[in-house]
């Protein structure tokens, strides 16, 4: 599970959960790899992100580095910053662990880098 993906995952499909975001990460295995850097792509992805949740997630697994917690104006042309954002968004992966709903405490397993968001029938909010 990359942090780009984590930033989109919510548990508000569960009955009784209002926001269900961000999901807390309890990682037992984190992998860092090299992914080709595409600065324009990263610049376009940043507005889609909930930036503080991204930083919080990265920090919780010790991968924040010196990524700024606030977006500077004109970040789109700051290649050094984009490279750091790229690293956190695409190069860090939680391979094994759990995601925890902040409201219900319900846990979702991450296995082989894939989060399992399937619910039981009783849990689904209609």
């Amino acid at each position, binding site marked *: 599970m990359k942090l780009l993906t984590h930033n989109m995952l919510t548990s508000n499909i569960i009955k009784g959960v209002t926001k269900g975001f961000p999901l807390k990460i309890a990682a037992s295995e984190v992998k860092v790899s090299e992914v080709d850097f*595409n600065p324009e792509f990263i610049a376009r992805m940043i507005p889609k992100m*909930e930036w503080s949740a991204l930083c919080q997630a990265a920090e919780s697994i010790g991968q924040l580095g010196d990524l700024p917690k606030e977006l500077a104006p004109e970040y789109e042309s700051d290649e050094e910053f984009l490279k750091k954002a790229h690293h956190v968004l695409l190069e860090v992966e939680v391979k094994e662990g759990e995601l925890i709903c902040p409201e219900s405490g319900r846990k979702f397993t991450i296995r082989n880098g894939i989060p399992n968001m399937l619910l039981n029938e009783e849990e689904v909010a209609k």
Partner: protein
Amino acid sequence: MKLKELESRLQGVDHFEEPKILLEQYPTSPHIAAHMLYTIQSHYDDIEDKLVGDLGCGCGMLSVGAAMLGCGACIGFDIDSYALDVCLRNFEEFEINNIDLVQCDITGFNTNTRWHKTFDTVIMNPPFGTKHNKGIDMVFLEQALSMAQTAVYSLHKTATREHIQKKSYDWGVKMEVIAELRYNLPATYKFHKHKSVDIQVDFVRFSFPNKKR
């Protein structure tokens, strides 16, 4: 990358070992996948450097192809663990590292998700709704349209074209049948009487009228 090369490379994508009938699991053939993806990129420029979503990704044929054509990143969604495991094998084999996977039930998503308008492009070969799951193709389509910002590319039975046209009109989305394909389903399941079955399938592009494209 040329179309022929794309198709040739996609021949190497692993398929389901034991496809599940009720989930309508069958791989998108390398031939169809290559033609779809090649058209999406060369004609509409909707893959390269884009964030792509693959709903009901199965063994990952479309995602792998999107990566080969230079997508910025791709996220695949599927309900089945075995299918997702095959995806992982494929990504490793092709040394693709910009695709992420989520195990979930697309039909269970509501409009409250953060996926709304996240993807530039959604590409999919959804279940057709032939196995006690009538209407599932429309549920997939509705979700895809919610998740995509620029376009949704999908395969639907030609027999449902009029119905989809009406729905598209109701939803205010533009529908364009790019091509009519003869989908050749090999006797994947033991009860198929014939060696293969041909269905008429539409390759459709959905887009949003208020956007430039």
